[in-house]
């Protein structure tokens, strides 16, 4: 890679979202993740790349898999990590987000990985502290590392992103995964569809250049890959869909529905799955499901993001992983 290309691939201070990254940066992160995949296959899964850096995983919403994925990525790069969990109720009574951030900063940290219930929270934090901020999900806005690992998985299987058709199925309205995927896939030249009941699809999505399907059969006929979103029980309680049973009958991804596709579709799911609601077990466990590969790729992508934000150069990633922990 030329010098200017490496500079263009620099991530800057933070990873707040995919929307403004540009194709070059996204591709650079995906390329950087490739060499890191192999570290997790070793017996000793650790390189000294981030030795001495302190990373805080600040989770204002419960999350098991994203937090653990980040923690593995951090530990495999030899960073020191601290996990902080804070529920909305305890925060509501106590200090503000800006005070939490300033207190962490005062303890001299290097990076914050944050999950927060409010859209825009990651940017809010990034604008106020000098540490690197990685958005691990902010409200219904973005979840950039999830989209990156989805795109890495799609690229592994489809050979490329450009020109491929990817349909995001389910609760697009409330989904940060959907938004980050839409921004990233469109940037890389994919055709993007969204499919679900109209109550869960914001109509203005069309203006982003996204194709809207209200019938899952049409989406299956059109797409090369489906990214199936979790349907949360709260959505039924809030009246967006009448029942989970009806949702499964009309929008659930089943083997029978997939059988009409001209060629097999790649099946992704960001997890955790509601088997028998948005996806049937024989699809989730079927031959075209890449759901567990997504989890594996998640660690590699997060290692790449941590490495790049810490100042690592994409072209040096291969050399970095050859170092050994002393």
């Amino acid at each position, binding site marked *: 890679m030329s010098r200017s290309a490496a500079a263009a691939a620099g991530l800057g201070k933070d990873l707040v979202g995919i929307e403004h990254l540009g194709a070059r940066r996204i591709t650079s992160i995906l390329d950087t993740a490739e060499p890191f995949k192999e570290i997790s296959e070793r017996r000793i899964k650790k390189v000294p790349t981030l030795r001495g850096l302190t990373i805080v995983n600040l989770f204002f919403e419960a999350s098991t898999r994203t937090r653990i994925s980040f923690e593995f990525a951090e530990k495999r790069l030899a960073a020191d990590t601290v996990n902080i969990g804070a529920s909305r109720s305890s925060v509501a009574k106590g200090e*503000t987000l800006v005070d939490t951030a300033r207190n962490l900063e005062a303890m001299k940290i290097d990076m914050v990985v944050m999950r927060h219930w409010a*859209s*825009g929270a990651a940017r*809010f934090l990034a604008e106020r502290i000098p540490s690197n901020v990685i958005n691990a999900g902010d*409200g*219904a*806005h*973005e979840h950039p590392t999830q989209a990156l690992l989805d795109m890495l998985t799609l690229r592994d299987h489809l050979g490329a992103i450009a020109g491929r058709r990817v349909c995001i199925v389910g609760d697009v309205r409330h989904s940060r995964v959907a938004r980050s995927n839409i921004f990233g896939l469109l940037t890389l030249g994919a055709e993007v569809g969204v499919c679900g009941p109209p109550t869960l699809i914001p109509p203005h999505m069309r203006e*982003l250049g996204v194709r809207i399907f209200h019938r899952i059969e049409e989406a299956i006929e059109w797409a090369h890959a489906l990214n199936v979103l979790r349907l949360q029980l709260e959505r039924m309680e809030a009246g967006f869909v009448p029942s989970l049973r009806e949702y499964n009958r009309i929008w659930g991804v089943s083997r029978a529905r997939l059988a009409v596709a001209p060629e097999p579709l790649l099946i992704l799911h960001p997890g955790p799955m509601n088997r028998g609601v948005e996806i049937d077990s024989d699809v989730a466990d079927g031959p075209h499901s890449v759901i567990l590969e997504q989890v594996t790729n998640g660690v590699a992508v997060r290692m790449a993001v941590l490495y790049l934000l810490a100042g690592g150069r994409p072209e040096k990633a291969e050399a970095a992983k050859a170092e050994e922990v002393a």
Partner: protein
Amino acid sequence: MSPRPLWIRGGRIIDPAAGLDATADLLLLDGRVAECGGEVEGPADAEVLDARGLVVAPGLIDVHVHLREPGGEHKETIATGARAAAAGGFTSVCAMPNTSPPIDDPASVGFVVAEGRRAGGARVYPVGAISAGLEGRRLAEIGEMVAAGAVGITDDGHPVMDSGLMRLALEYALPFGIPVADHPEDLGLSREGSMNEGLVSARLGLVGKPNASEDIHIVRDLLLAELTGGRIHLQHVSTAWGVEAIRQAKARGVRATAEASPHHLILTEAAVEGYRTDAKMNPPLRTGADVAAVRAGLADGTLDVIATDHAPHHYDEKESAFDDAPFGIVGLETAVGLVLTHIVGEGVIDLPTAIERMSPAAARAFNLPGGTLAPGSVADVTLIDPARAWAVDPSRFLSKSRNTPFAGLELTGKAVMTIVGGEVVWREDGSG
């Protein structure tokens, strides 16, 4: 003791109520306008003000401000709000009742009147609550509040969701001759929303308030005013269809008045980009098509008055995630500059019409004194330098709060002197 006579010489007097726009003198005596027009001979003890190059207007009136007292004194008090109003060129303001406790009985109305008198800035007129406790269940003591000095009623901040209660309010208010003001919003459609529903909200992952949430209540209120013969005043109209509905209702003879806020005349939802909490208000900033419609409504008189919806908040409250921040921006000290630069300057309305929308029309909507410089009327006068270039610097506001999306904006046109009851309560050089 009455103030020294004021002899204001050589200004461009614009008094839309009297159809006057001419270079002339104005003499204020004993708290009243003594003479207006032509060359006036002032008494020997008069203070002479050289108003050449300035516009001399009837005192500006803002019928929609939140002064936060009692209960929100860290954001604003009646005193700081009245002085901020004077610094913005306003001689009268109407204070909304959504304080804590709310202004929903004669004693609390009396408190606002008394604090307003002590403030020594703009006149402060209380607007009482429609419903007891702003709870939307039963009428507040409307007659008693009017007797104590309330000039209108509203549950502003809380729309009246029960159409039956709104009907009762419009009927019950009839003998008191006051307007019933409503913040039109159907909470069933908008409750979780923090900005306009559209492409920007879809991208930012924020819940939106659709135009329909405002339109439905505008139409409802107009129908109820038609049903009852009551006087409806629609606050901070922000939607294209809302403007059209008011236009049609007025053509049918419905007794309606309506407001446009400077921010809804100037900004779109794009100002929210970056989760800017100083662009979070209710109703939200909407699309360019809505801004164009609100401008057209202001130009043809469908929207009678310009009102700021001055909504001060402490910086701690706005320094938060977008969803967690309160709605509202301050407006008193930027309104004149914004209107002159962006509404008059961009040819939406001419200067006399702008003054009409900010003074006599406001006085008519709430039956307030002022709004004219005709001899015998109250000596409330605003002097405006239409050529004064300045930049919005929130650190210089007299308001306690700084929450404005217009910080740093370069404007042309500024109020340079505010006179209430013949007394200079504010002047640009600070000696007021």
